[in-house]
């Protein structure tokens, strides 16, 4: 199997606290990897580091065969995406507008029709069509989580990094996420998830990596 992303001999710290030392992880194409571990052990930091948003202290990170520093921000946006666990917005954008932020990396390169089609599809996938014109700030936390996931999937990156994607979701919506993640894997994509959710992890299959403090 081909490797999409690899982190080698990395030291990851937040503030003055070293979370992971000499840490290595390879993420294959068409695979799902779930990171588990206690709170504060460094799951989110690891995810952000692999997304290239937390500087490594030693070690290296490569995506699609090249060192991360060889990519521009725009190029990276087509390769990997990261979905945080809570929604942040300084202003009350509508669900349609917020999800559509995900089209930023490729908006200019596709036709208006294709753009609208992709947006409509991702809204349907995450059961957001009926919420389209509502402000994201007026939604429940479960609805906000689906909005974030829809934005992340719309970005269309090969490596999906999802941080606790199901914490606020009810059972029926968890199944939607589960299906979308497995579909991404079956299309050759790579998924990296941090989760506490035992049922979700079991339903997903794939590799499980435990972080210890």
């Amino acid at each position, binding site marked *: 199997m081909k490797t999409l992303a690899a982190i080698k001999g990395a030291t990851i710290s937040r503030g003055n606290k070293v979370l992971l030392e000499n840490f290595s992880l390879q993420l294959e194409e068409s695979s799902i990897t779930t990171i588990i571990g206690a709170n504060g052990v460094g799951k989110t930091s690891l995810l*952000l580091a692999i*997304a290239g*948003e937390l500087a490594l202290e030693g070690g290296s990170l490569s995506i699609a065969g090249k060192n991360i520093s060889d990519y521009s*921000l*725009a*190029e*990276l*946006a*087509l390769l*990997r*995406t*990261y979905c*945080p666990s809570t929604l*942040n*917005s*300084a*202003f*009350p*954008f*509508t669900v349609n*507008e917020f999800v559509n*932020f*995900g089209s*930023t*990396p490729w908006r200019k390169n596709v036709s208006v029709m294709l753009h609208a089609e992709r947006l409509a599809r991702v809204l349907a996938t995450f059961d957001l069509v009926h919420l389209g014109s509502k402000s994201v700030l007026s939604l429940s936390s479960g609805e906000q989580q689906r909005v974030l996931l829809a934005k992340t999937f719309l*970005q269309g990156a090969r490596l999906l990094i999802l941080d606790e994607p199901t914490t606020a979701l009810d059972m029926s919506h968890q199944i939607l996420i589960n299906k979308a993640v497995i579909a991404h894997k079956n299309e050759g994509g790579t998924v990296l998830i941090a989760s506490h959710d035992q049922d979700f992890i079991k339903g997903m299959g794939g590799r499980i990596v435990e972080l210890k403090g």
Partner: protein
Amino acid sequence: MRTKHFVLPLIVLLLALTGSIALGGVAGSPAEVFTALIRHDHSTLSQVLWNIRLPRVLLAMLVGAGLSLAGALMQTMFRNPLADPAILGISSGSALGLVMALLAGLEFGSISASFCAVLGGLFAIAIISGVTRRKGAVSADTSTAGFVLVGVALNAFIAGALGILLSATSNPQARSISFWTLGTISLATWKGLTSVALFFVAGLIVISLVRTKANLLALEDYEIRILGANPSKLRFTLAIGSAILVASATSIVGVISFVGLITPYAIRLVVGPNVKLLLPIAALWGSILVLISDTLARTLIHSMEIPIGTILALIGSPIFVWVLVKRVRA
């Protein structure tokens, strides 16, 4: 859906424009005003219309649009709906830049003097961004009330510096505009209007470099980078654009408060935060607000001019409260 937001302000602007041209110390029937405008002859009415009223009316519109746009951009860029060029001291910074340029011998209304006003505004933006920067963080947390207070302090400081400069100088040009720091549109000339229009267009061009990507600034910086955009670059471009717009207004009319705060704030409540709609609609209503205020300022009391800031506060605050209350009840 989109067009409906444009129809009302365009109609109101047309009415305000007509009324504003017709009203004044030298007036006539609508027919007389119309012929005087078309003929452009040596009659008093025609002379007043062409040399005084028309540039003043156009200047009021441009200033309103520019300040309103600058306010909308600053609110977007600082992630703070209370950001405003006058409150944060950007307008004072601009005024300081201009006064220093005048003291150095540049001419009021010239492009080089306005350019110094742009630098003054950018200087104020740089200070406020620098002071509020979080330790160790890439960007400042500007979404808080504390941020606005830093701006209030900066504004007071610059206004103080400006006051000292103006009272200490013997430069007649600088002295004659000391009342201008309170804001007035009465200094309108075609020449000044040209300079304002040039900078206004330059500001629009700079903003157009960013366009709808400005919306991403509602997200955290790392989320923006994940999407392939550079938040620092976006903010920098918006800072330049809004400094140019503020300077375009300030360099001729001085510091005018309120427009940059309430117009975009109120319009955002109605049309939402998407800059694609927010910017043009806020610009339209901003120009209406200043145009009507200035017309009232020069016509309410016979042969005397009321400071436009007073009128703006009297018109603007009830509208603002009305929009807020309507929103809360809905």
